[in-house]
């Protein structure tokens, strides 16, 4: 138990440091922009607005928020304090909505879309890789290569093809948004049905491109494990192949768990861009709008939320991993 405590203590401390560095980067990077960022951003932001009140409000907001004359560290203090209360200021492009409000409404969509899609893709990929390694034949020679080819496709490419084929040509599912444009979010059956049917294309496009990459990793791991000495030894003690395959896949699966954590950031990046194709109202689309509208506070909040999501997911995976893999415990005792 002592080993575990040390392990988790270290992990959590490490993630806290990483989190702080991520926040600092998020704060500092845009301020390294050449010239005076505040007037540039505020000027650009206000140029699209016609409402004089709004322009003034934005400008004041900026001057107050950035405290241009304060030293960097004081600015950071103010910014961080407000951010801790969930206050990221007012959006330029969607004035008068606050950044927190926009993030709150898009975050859920992204989470509900990507988390299940990536997990399902990961699971199916692992099953396919294991089956390809163990059964070989058609799985190894046909199905796996097909999914490998698909996984080389960029996320938005898969999205656009799914949209054209299943959305437009076959008309199986709606092509844009998260629910019918004529509906108001509520808990009625019509609305839920609409959400589910809008969910299909983005969901499966993420699942499909995730499978191949996971499958090839799992295949390699499984082949490696199938050749391990313990497999031979277990066979010579008369243990059934079904049971041995169980050992093998459990062991091959463990590195795949860490693999998932490590590639999560990349996967999310791809999936966020896919959202744009489907005009899905998640963080990806919000981020694109923020960039197009030069809406710095919104963009920075989006990237921060994404970073936190990835960090939490990683931390979660490491905690789970510590429990399911006894090798971690053993390493702590050395």
């Amino acid at each position, binding site marked *: 138990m002592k080993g575990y405590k040390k392990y988790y203590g270290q992990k959590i401390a490490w993630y806290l440091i990483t989190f702080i560095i991520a926040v600092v980067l998020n704060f500092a990077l845009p*301020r390294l922009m050449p010239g005076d960022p505040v007037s540039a951003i505020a000027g650009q932001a206000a140029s699209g607005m016609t409402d004089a009140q709004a322009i003034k409000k934005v400008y004041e907001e900026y001057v107050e928020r950035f405290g241009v004359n304060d030293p960097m560290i004081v600015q950071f203090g103010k910014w961080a304090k407000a951010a801790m209360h969930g206050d990221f200021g007012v959006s330029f492009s969607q004035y008068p909505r606050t950044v927190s409000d926009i993030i709150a409404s898009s975050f859920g969509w992204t989470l509900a879309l990507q988390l299940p899609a990536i997990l399902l893709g990961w699971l199916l990929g692992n099953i396919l890789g294991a089956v390809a390694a163990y059964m070989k034949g058609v799985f190894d020679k046909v199905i796996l290569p097909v999914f490998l080819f698909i996984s080389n496709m960029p996320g938005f490419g898969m999205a656009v093809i799914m949209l054209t084929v299943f959305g437009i040509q076959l008309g199986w599912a709606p092509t844009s948004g998260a629910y019918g444009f004529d509906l108001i979010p509520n808990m009625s059956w019509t609305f839920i049905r609409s959400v589910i049917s809008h969910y299909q294309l983005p969901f499966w496009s993420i699942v499909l491109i995730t499978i191949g990459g996971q499958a090839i990793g799992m295949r390699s791991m499984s082949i490696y494990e199938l050749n391990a000495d313990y497999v031979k030894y277990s066979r010579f003690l008369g243990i059934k192949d079904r049971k041995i395959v169980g050992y093998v896949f459990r062991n091959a699966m463990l590195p795949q768990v860490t693999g998932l954590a*490590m590639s999560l950031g990349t996967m999310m990046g791809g999936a966020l861009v896919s959202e744009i194709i489907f005009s899905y109202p998640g963080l990806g689309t919000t981020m694109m709008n923020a960039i197009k509208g030069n809406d710095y506070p919104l963009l920075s909040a989006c990237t921060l939320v994404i970073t936190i999501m990835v960090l939490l997911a990683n931390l979660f995976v490491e905690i789970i991993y510590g429990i399911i893999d006894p090798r971690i415990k053993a390493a702590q005792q050395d």
Partner: protein
Amino acid sequence: MKNTLRNIFHSPKFVIGFVIFFGLLLFTFIYPWFVMADPLEMVGQGNFFKPGTYVSVKDTVDSKYYTLNIQAKSANLGDHIEDKDKADMRDWLVNYGGVSQEEMDAADDNTLVALWLEHYDSKAKQKGLLASKKKAFVRLDKEIQKLASDADMIIAQENEDGELEETASVDSQQYVNTRDISNKRTFVLGTDNFGRDVLTELVQATKVSLKIGLIAGTVATLIGLLLGLLSGYIGGVFDDVIIFITNLFTVIPSFVLLILITYSVGQNARGVTLIATVIGATSWTWTCRSVRSQVISLRNRDHVNLSKLSGHSMMRIVLTDILPYVASYVVMAFILQISSGILAEAQLSMLGLGPSTTTTATLGQMMNWATLYAAHLNGSWWAYFPVVFVITIIAFSLNLMNTGLDQVFNPQLRD
């Protein structure tokens, strides 16, 4: 070394990937020799012209005519009336035109039009048909009248008195040879939203994107290799610092860093080379990690110790005793980084953070414009599908090369 190369080129996967990749690269260099048009020239006035050969109408009129015994009318009827309209026509004729269902089922396009011309009457009683639908049928009728007419077409010119004077009459059996027409242009993949030739633009964009991939891959590999070698070989505090930074940037998504950095450099500074360098500078961690662990396992091998005892400089030991052993990993990482670099550029461009330049196109920008102009929603497949295909085939060829190398260096994975 020679042996390794021979093995590599005996791996079918590697060879296929290699041929596709370098074939594509070569194509981007050869294509401009044959098509010298400016890839970003806005040839078409309007969005998304479909693929095909466009000939000048005026030239057609001025060209020499040949009379061919081809029934031009029936070909027109078949091609120019849409399937939906045909179905509508059949319905109308059965419901209001007094044509029997059996006769209708047996009718081909020509008979259908003949029946239509014979039976359609806009004044007939059309019970249960919406007014708008009735009007649509009238329009359809006019269209069909025109198509079905085989009267000569008169070409007239305005004379000095401002009157029209017949210069020629063309009947439906007259043809021109396309060789006689001097003004024509083929758009193999149509045009994009700006009226630019998609194929020519695509070839140039592929070249630029490959350049981005190569720069990004080189930058990432150099940083990763250097830091990995040093931290693995020197160890100690230096190693701790490097490993901390590496872990840090493995967990903070490089995608987020890319967005923040490209956004913060500002629109004006965002050139192709800069974007490529930034992509490379945010994706070196994997190389660094694997090089480092390799170096640590090599550090205490006999041949390295021998070199140390012989008093060779660190530089020399790293270059001659360590580098050759990590080379295979580095090459494999480099190959993967080219493809992820190209993908990263495409994703950035989709978000509106791609290279901001008006003189070149990239695959990501082509995709971005196609999406902004809703090519995927209005059926202009030629504006986005070739782009997706090129990105996929580049990534696929690089991955094949990588898998081939992996199997050469790790024989266990062979089939």
